[in-house]
């Protein structure tokens, strides 16, 4: 422990010699005595002492404080200042060099020894801490890189799976077309079939048509991920109005009362937003079709947690849904009603979910008993 090597930086030779003697007497080794900062740095580079005892006033350009900073920063050598100046200004300047001790001359030999021992011990601890910190940073960086690599791998795997699903779905189209076509042609020959089988061609044909719809919806669903995003400032109220006008026009005879509040602008890709609104609002129109009039209200409220998002909502007076199955609403091809009750494959809300998530938003639904459904969705506020 006492074999530590020390560097003395002191421009008064008498004091330096006295200090060296005291150190040697206490069992330390002294690697050199420097009278100037420049000399101290040279000696320190050469001998790498475990500690420097540093006067503040030195010969040459660098004073003790400047020298101490170089020793700390460049060589990680701890410094104890030995100075006859203990005024506040000097102390403040000395603090900037982060010394391990500050002894005011004259000092006791025991006091010096204790300071040296504490410094050596504390510096050792600091070194271990720095090493540990460095190791943590390294591990963190590794972890971060690992996560990134893993994420990239998973994304690649997902893209591959979706690619396979896409190819399979696409290749089903041709045989489905054949099934539909031939069973359609067979319908002209039903008189040649036994009565019990006469409805089979139509059954085959309608199932082929349904499967073709499923394939189309699956492909459309998969395509959302590939669609490029060009977000811009969009007047969502205008978009809602336009989509509802078109959807209602496509169902002549429907009585629909539409209330669209003033809605704040959002940041969204106009094409995807339009697809989203078509899916969401056609769902609303579908499940209000027994109501005369169907009442659809579109409004918004501020987002409680995410300040940079708006919450928009669409409220209707339709059949609503059983809250117990709310999580199934947004699943691909899941339907809460009997398939023959409402047309479609159950892809609309799954598409809506995927689109709104791509645009950085969320969607969820509530159905107060006997009071229709409310679909909430969030979109980023336009900057």
């Amino acid at each position, binding site marked *: 422990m006492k074999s530590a090597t020390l560097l003395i930086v002191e421009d008064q030779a008498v004091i330096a010699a006295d200090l060296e003697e005291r150190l040697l007497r206490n069992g330390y080794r002294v690697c050199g005595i420097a009278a100037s900062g420049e000399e101290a740095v040279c000696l320190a580079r050469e001998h790498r002492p475990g500690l420097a005892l540093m006067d503040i006033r030195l010969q040459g350009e660098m004073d003790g404080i400047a020298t101490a900073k170089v020793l700390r920063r460049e060589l990680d050598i701890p410094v104890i200042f030995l100075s006859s100046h203990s005024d506040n200004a000097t102390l403040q300047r000395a603090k900037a060099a982060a010394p391990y001790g500050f002894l005011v001359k004259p000092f006791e030999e025991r006091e010096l020894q204790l300071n040296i021992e504490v410094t050596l011990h504390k510096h050792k601890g600091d070194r271990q801490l720095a090493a540990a910190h460095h190791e943590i940073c390294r591990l963190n960086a590794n972890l971060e890189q690992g996560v990134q690599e893993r994420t990239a791998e998973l994304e690649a795997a997902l893209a591959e799976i979706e690619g396979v699903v896409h190819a399979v779905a696409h290749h089903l*189209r041709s045989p489905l*077309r054949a099934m539909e076509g*031939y069973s359609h042609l067979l319908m002209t020959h039903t008189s040649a079939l036994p009565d019990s089988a006469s409805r089979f061609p139509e059954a085959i044909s309608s199932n082929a048509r349904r499967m073709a719809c499923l394939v189309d919806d699956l492909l459309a669903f998969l395509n959302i991920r590939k669609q490029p995003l060009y977000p811009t400032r969009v007047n969502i109220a205008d978009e809602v109005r336009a989509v509802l006008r078109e959807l209602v026009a496509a169902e002549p005879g429907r009585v629909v009362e539409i209330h669209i509040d003033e809605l704040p602008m959002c940041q969204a890709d106009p094409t995807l937003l339009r697809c989203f609104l078509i899916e969401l609002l056609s769902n609303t129109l579908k499940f209000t079709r027994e109501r005369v009039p169907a009442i659809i209200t579109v409004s918004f409220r501020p987002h409680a947690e995410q300040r940079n998002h708006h919450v928009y909502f669409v409220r209707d007076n339709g059949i609503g849904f059983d809250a117990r199955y709310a999580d199934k609403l947004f699943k691909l091809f899941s339907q809460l009603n009997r398939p023959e009750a409402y047309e479609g494959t159950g892809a609309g809300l799954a598409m809506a979910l995927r689109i709104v998530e791509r645009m950085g938003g969320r969607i969820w639904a509530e159905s107060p008993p006997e009071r229709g459904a409310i679909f909430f969705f969030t979109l980023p506020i336009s900057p």
Partner: protein
Amino acid sequence: MNMSAPDILLVEDSQSDIELFMFAHQRNKSTAVIRIVRDGVEALDLLLGNENRTEDVLAILPRLVLLDLNMPRLTGFDVLERLRTDERTRRLPIVIFSSSDQSADKLEAHRLGANDYVRKPAQFKDLCAILAQFEHDWLSVDVAS
């Protein structure tokens, strides 16, 4: 080989699609002369021939080519590109008739100079309607003039 010019050249590899196309043709009571080739190589052989019989080519050009995309050997895009770079077929009406509704395919067809892109319908009755539309759009007037 019948060398008189057909009205429609259908370039299609699927036997079922060909048969259903001909049933639709029959159902429509269409009088258009249909000629069928089973892939891109056959299509180019028929339309461009080889260097030795170029003089025949203009006489046998159809008034409309319906071109499938996914075919063995040369794809529909390969065929389209070749036909558009040949002076004799640069203006030949070519409609892509494919199962794909991918926008990338539509864009590529447009880029290579297809006159139109029509998705193959899932239902036979739509096939009948589309065939009638093809005849109306491309065969009813003298498009070439």
